[in-house]
């Protein structure tokens, strides 16, 4: 099993190498449950909500919603019991941080839960842990038992008279239960099929009661915010995305594993410096920044800071911070097969678009992979529009991006009809595929010497170019000259076509 301590640690994980930290005594010796004591005995629930809201903490389960704001949505009236659901159903491929937060820091998570329970005046928390996480689940169960025995949970939490109970439920293998309303259904002993929203869980959640669902990591940050204040928290990370997160790096890197780093750390820094880059002297082909539901970033886009405000500009998202690196030997169509199979297998079956659509997606890419596909299999209209139907935004995102990759991966050596975007003194910028442009150098325009670029091409003109090279940053070198030579060579062996050539 081995000890899974992040290679780079921060405030969340600094004690994760220390076995004592997993016990209540060891946790308390490092200041454990002091933040909860402070919150429960010196702060009003409203003050805690305000503090967490002011810190700007964003949920770390994928959607990035502001945690304190979510807490403030809970009704204040006492006619119904309020619940918390802690989402420990980590199952987004590429994500493995919550598992370590439970294995090595279960008390830290529980302390965050207790503070949240006080803030929302909740009477019970259900921790929903994915069924496969037997060991992390056992670590949480042990921590809960220790905390109960010490009076941290129960009828009078930390001796304050505030009652809160914690229940651990183990799931049973269903990706969809990580979706918050699917999780609520599963808690109720049903199939984990998501509910329609509204009503939102804060109105109608677990067992019909107001419920707030937060991720394991989100809760784990809370004690540090109480201890050090919102200003401290905001001093880490970016202006809009404060704090650290635990990035999980997997795939083709020298040092796969976990890295706790401030949000906004550049993706290329994580991949190349921290995780040691791609081994065997190979180059990167693409990186998925936050679990397989997030669109892939091609090489050349890896300079992005890992925070949603920046990733959105690249049409991707932080998700769970699960970074998957694929080197140049990776077949993107094969990768699509693996991913579409996953969505097909994990479709909860509730809505036709996803239940049927994910199956078709997988069939189509599988056929493409076997070399038996055709362009008609992707619904392309004359203007190039591709229609994708899905009720599941994640699956839709993936489908869109995969299709873009399949259709838009520029192949070196291939000839494209490109559009001249603008002229330069020494050549022209030509777009070969949507979003993919390259340099047509003046020396590559024609066989003869070219003095003025504008003598040969003008902006908006469609030209045939051959892709000579794509460097490791994804920049393309294009040639009209080579495209013309190829065309001439292809025509040369056969006699020049003439009207008298027999048709058959």
């Amino acid at each position: 099993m081995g000890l899974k301590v992040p290679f780079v640690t921060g405030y969340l994980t600094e004690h994760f190498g220390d076995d004592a930290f997993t016990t209540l005594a060891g946790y308390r010796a490092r200041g454990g449950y002091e933040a909860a004591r402070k919150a429960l005995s010196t702060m009003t629930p409203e003050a805690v909500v305000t503090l967490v809201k002011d810190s700007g903490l964003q949920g770390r389960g994928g959607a990035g919603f502001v945690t304190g704001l979510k807490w403030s949505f809970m009704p204040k009236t006492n006619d119904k019991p309020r619940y918390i659901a802690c989402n420990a159903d980590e199952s987004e491929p590429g994500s493995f941080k919550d598992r370590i937060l439970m294995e090595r820091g279960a008390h830290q998570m529980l302390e965050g839960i207790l503070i949240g329970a006080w803030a929302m005046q909740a009477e019970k928390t259900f921790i929903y842990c994915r069924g496969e996480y037997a060991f992390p689940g056992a670590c949480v169960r042990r921590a809960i038992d220790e905390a109960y025995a010490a009076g941290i949970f129960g009828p009078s939490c930390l001796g304050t008279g505030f009652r809160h109970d914690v229940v651990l439920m183990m799931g049973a293998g269903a990706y969809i239960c990580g979706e918050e309303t699917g999780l609520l259904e599963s808690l109720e002993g049903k199939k984990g099929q998501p509910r329609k929203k509204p009503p939102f869980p804060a109105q109608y959640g677990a067992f019909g009661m107001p419920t707030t669902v937060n991720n394991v990591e989100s809760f784990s940050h809370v004690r540090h915010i109480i201890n050090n204040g919102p200003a401290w928290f905001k001093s880490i990370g970016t202006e809009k995305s404060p704090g650290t997160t635990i990035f999980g790096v997997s795939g083709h890197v020298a040092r796969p594993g976990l890295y706790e780093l401030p949000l906004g750390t550049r993706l290329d820094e994580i991949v190349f410096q921290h995780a040691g880059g791609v081994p065997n002297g190979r180059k990167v082909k693409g990186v998925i920044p936050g679990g397989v539901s997030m669109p892939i970033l091609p090489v050349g886009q890896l300079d992005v800071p890992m925070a949603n405000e920046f990733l959105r500009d690249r049409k991707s998202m932080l998700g769970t911070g699960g970074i998957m690196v694929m080197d140049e030997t990776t077949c993107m169509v094969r990768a699509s097969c693996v991913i579409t199979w996953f969505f097909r297998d994990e479709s909860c079956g509730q809505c036709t678009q996803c239940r049927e659509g994910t199956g078709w997606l997988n069939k189509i890419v599988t056929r493409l992979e076997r070399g038996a596909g055709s362009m008609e299999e992707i619904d392309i209209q004359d203007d190039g529009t591709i229609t994708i139907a899905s009720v599941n935004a994640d699956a839709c995102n993936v489908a869109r991006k995969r299709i873009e990759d399949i259709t838009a991966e520029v192949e070196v050596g291939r000839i494209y009809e490109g559009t001249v975007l603008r002229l330069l003194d020494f050549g022209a910028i030509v777009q070969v595929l949507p979003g993919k442009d390259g340099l047509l150098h003046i020396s590559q325009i024609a066989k003869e010497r070219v003095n003025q670029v504008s003598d040969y091409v003008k902006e908006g003109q469609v030209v045939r170019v051959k892709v000579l090279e794509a460097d490791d940053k994804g920049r393309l070198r294009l040639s009209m000259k080579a495209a013309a030579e190829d065309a001439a060579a292809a025509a040369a062996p056969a006699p020049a076509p003439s009207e008298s050539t027999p048709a058959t």
Partner: protein
Amino acid sequence: MVISAETRAKIDVEIAKYPQRRGGLLPALHLVQKEKGWIAADTARELAEIFGIKVVDVMEVVTFYNMFYDEPQGRHHVHVCTNLPCSLRGARDLLRGLEAHLGIDAGETTKDKRITLGHEECLGACGYAPMMRVDETYHEDLDLAAAKEIVDALK
């Protein structure tokens, strides 16, 4: 009565934790499966009685979740993760190697009922790939030789 008194007592403890009885259904299925190895029709009937729901309500839950089984299983489950991060690091070869070693395909059980082999979607061990889950234990950073050794040691 097919569920033992001991398991039944544990089920009652679980049920008491939830505001509605049915909240205890997933924990109950885990407990029963631990005792029986799978959820047979008579077990499902008894669970339906315990929870005051229909047999079909129990069975739709059993068949929805990957970890509940409605047919007999081998004594051990060996599941290789084949999702993208593991695939990038050789999971497919690991699974094919184990298939050849055990003489069965993924999804099948050995003749002596010792092992049910399967592939699984992401198990949250992406940084330690390839990996396999043997019953409740993760084995990570594997190669085929190490995996064979682990599998051969299963009784």
